[in-house]
């Protein structure tokens, strides 16, 4: 069989590892082994059922959630939360809406008790228009939260020095933005993301925020990022369930591409079809 000959020629282990890429590309984050590289948000869906179906179609194993004031009249009306619980996904609560390190730390403590997890997506916003992370408050909060035993997933800008400092205070994961939250602008600064990947090779990296199309997620994975986090691009698509599946496929494609060694782009053309034996030469 052709496959057997190939295995003899190239080495059984190499051929085996090719087919096993799909099966065993699992990864660890803060002690949890995951096989999906898609973290998906739970907000902005047209209905709880569409949210549930989208999460299932995404095959994500981690979903983001949050916490807000409850009015007594709302008791028992939290259908979204019931469906999130039944998804079987790992919860990644966020500190969305916080503007200071103190707010974020307090909200994280509340989240830890409410959701029974040390995982926290740290979001401290510095500007109410572009919703960018406040780098200074994020770093301050991250340092405090790590000391309190939290497993911090900091939403940050694509600044290398900020990323290094977040690593230095104990974050094992970084989540630099692709573009501002909800814009769908994709990866605005792939050079910066590539720099972070190259200079922090041992960190777990996710692109979080601003992804719009599946090709954006594919690109992020082709840059060598470990996973992506997105919400709006799925939840506000015309058909969120099909879009969730499209993103899942794109993330898998980008991951396979990264693992299989893409060709380098080059300036000069280079024919792929052999020139030897070209008919009609020197006959005109």
């Amino acid at each position, binding site marked *: 069989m052709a496959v057997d000959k190939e295995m003899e020629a190239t080495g059984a282990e190499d051929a085996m590892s090719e087919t096993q890429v799909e099966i065993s590309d699992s990864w660890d984050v803060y002690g949890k082994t995951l096989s999906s590289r898609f973290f998906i948000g739970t907000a902005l869906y047209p209905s709880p059922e569409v949210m549930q179906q989208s999460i299932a179609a995404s095959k994500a194993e981690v979903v983001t959630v*949050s*916490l807000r*004031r*409850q009015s007594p009249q709302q008791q028992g009306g939290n259908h979204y*939360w019931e469906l*999130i619980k039944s998804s079987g996904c790992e919860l990644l609560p966020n500190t*969305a809406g916080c503007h200071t390190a103190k707010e974020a730390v307090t909200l994280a403590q509340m989240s830890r008790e409410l959701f029974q997890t040390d995982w926290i997506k740290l979001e401290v916003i510095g500007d109410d228009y572009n919703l960018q992370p406040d780098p200074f408050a994020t770093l301050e909060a991250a340092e405090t939260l790590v000391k309190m035993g939290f497993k911090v997933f900091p939403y940050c800008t694509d600044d290398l020095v900020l990323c290094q400092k977040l690593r230095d205070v104990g974050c094992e994961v970084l989540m630099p933005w692709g573009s501002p939250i909800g814009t769908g602008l994709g990866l605005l600064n792939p050079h910066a993301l590539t720099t972070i990947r190259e200079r922090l090779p041992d960190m777990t990296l996710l692109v979080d925020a601003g992804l719009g199309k599946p090709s954006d997620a594919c690109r992020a994975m082709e840059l060598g990022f470990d996973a992506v986090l997105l*919400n709006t691009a799925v939840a506000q698509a015309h058909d969120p369930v099909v879009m969730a599946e499209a993103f899942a496929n794109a993330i898998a494609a980008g991951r396979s591409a990264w693992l299989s060694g893409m060709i380098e782009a080059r300036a000069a053309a280079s024919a792929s079809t052999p020139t030897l034996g070209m008919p009609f030469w020197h006959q005109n």
Partner: protein
Amino acid sequence: MLEVSVNGERATIAPAQVLEQAMQEWGFDPNDMLVIAVNQTFVPRDRWADTEVKAADKIDILQPIVGG
């Protein structure tokens, strides 16, 4: 009666009430999935029964919601 704020709204409570009692007076069920902060400081569930509500306290009672 003490004047406090609960989730940004004005509320009142009799003096020397602990959180666990006060929240029920305000319509919250301690058995629900809720967390509480008083004056931006987290109050763990196991302290609800011995944390007294004081005048002008700003109390936040939060529940799980969707998020991105």
